[in-house]
């Protein structure tokens, strides 16, 4: 499986779409498949300050509860309300309608810790 080439990724299986000084964040198709049917997503309030690598929310499947980890430092400016009634969007469209939060980045140039698509594919392949 290869992931969208225009996105960046974290080792915790989040994806990031950089949009100027903002970033949209979700979890990868691989993560969604591993979790199975997603039945609940807990996201932070807008205005919340997130710190890179710290947990910012929760995604739950039928059997399991998993933390979501902030890929970058910034302020939450939007969350995907559609996930409240439609958590399954994360499974059906993880890179599109399954997006989770939009961040205003503290430092739009500090992206070095993110993986590119090839590096993320290699990470997943390594198991």
């Amino acid at each position, binding site marked *: 499986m290869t992931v969208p080439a225009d996105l960046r990724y974290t080792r915790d299986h989040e994806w990031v779409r950089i949009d100027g000084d903002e970033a949209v964040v979700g979890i990868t198709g691989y993560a969604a498949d591993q979790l199975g049917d997603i039945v*609940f997503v807990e996201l932070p309030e807008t205005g919340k300050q997130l710190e890179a690598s710290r947990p910012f929310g929760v995604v739950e*499947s*039928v059997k399991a509860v998993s933390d979501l980890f902030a890929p970058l430092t910034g302020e939450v400016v939007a969350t995907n309300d559609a996930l409240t009634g439609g958590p399954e969007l994360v499974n059906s469209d993880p890179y599109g309608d399954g997006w989770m939060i939009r961040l205003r980045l503290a430092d739009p140039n500090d992206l070095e810790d993110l993986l590119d698509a090839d590096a993320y594919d290699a990470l997943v392949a390594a198991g």
Partner: protein
Amino acid sequence: MTESVPHETPLAARHEQLGARMIDFSGWRMPVQYGSILDEHRAVRERVGLFDLSHMGELMVEGPEAAAGLAAALVSDPTALSIGRAQYSMIVAPDGGIIDDLIVYRLAEDRFLVVANAGNAEVVSDTLAERLTKRRAILDDQSLATGLVAIQGPRAVDVLTPLTDIDLSALRYYAIAEGTVAGIAGLIARTGYTGEDGFEVFVEWSRTGELWDALAAATQAANGLPVGLGARDTLRLEAGMPLYGNELDRTTTPFDAGLGRVVKLEKDGDFVGRAALERAVAEGSKRRLVGLIVEGRGIARHGYAIHAGDRVTGAVTSGTQSPTLGVPIAMGYVAPADGTPGTVLDIAIRDARVPARVVDLPFYRRRSTT
């Protein structure tokens, strides 16, 4: 300490071929899900599902004192069972704590099949054998010689009828009969752990693969699915059925769990746990198992604390998002005074207190009855 290699049922290779995610469950390598737990759950509610339950324990108890011996060893009264009928039962310790929940099937005047949970099969076998030592009855642990496949759902009877020589219209709920399925000799019971109509088929271990293949083809033709332990758990929770290790354990009496009807104090003779259970009835339970429907946002899970106002009143024993009801449901123990249906309690879900309403069990009841 070295871990022992898990047991495999005769169907392990088939599960893997179907792409199942396998886990170690009570020392057995079992399928959690073949694809989507929600799809498997819905298949059983709407059509039919097929389960590998070969990990369960099957204990044959036979002899002139089999009935009396079991009556003295268990809380229920197997002497009251007609031939071909079954009862839900429990084996408790002398202090009344539950060792396992069981189904006891009467196959003949002097022959009983006792089915135990996989994780407790050995301790039940040992304990029961010990309790029968002075009786003219022999316990034969056939767990590793018996395969078990369950077929559950509204279409189960349609799937099984062409494959069996047993008249299923005459096989009532909680009955068992000897016959053949796909030409294989076995026992067919109308019991299950899903809240749907269905059957559990016991065959000799070496025939389990053949049995599964025949049932799987018929299940597929009926638009059903193979179903793993993930959906088995969500199905039984909706049906309000307890799981040993969650709702039932050594610190719990049948009365705590709302299952006092299983204990037949009026039966003749002593039984292990009688004194403790009579005391428990007289004193009343200190806690009560309730159903909960979460009314706020969040899924209640095993271990989460339950609050009544600013006081902790108990904890969640099982919880999930109910596929059929579309809301989070849970079972848990609370102080009896907080357990009246309609009471709104709070469940601690991470940093939040989420309201949940006490309801009668089960959460789901199927429409038709047999």
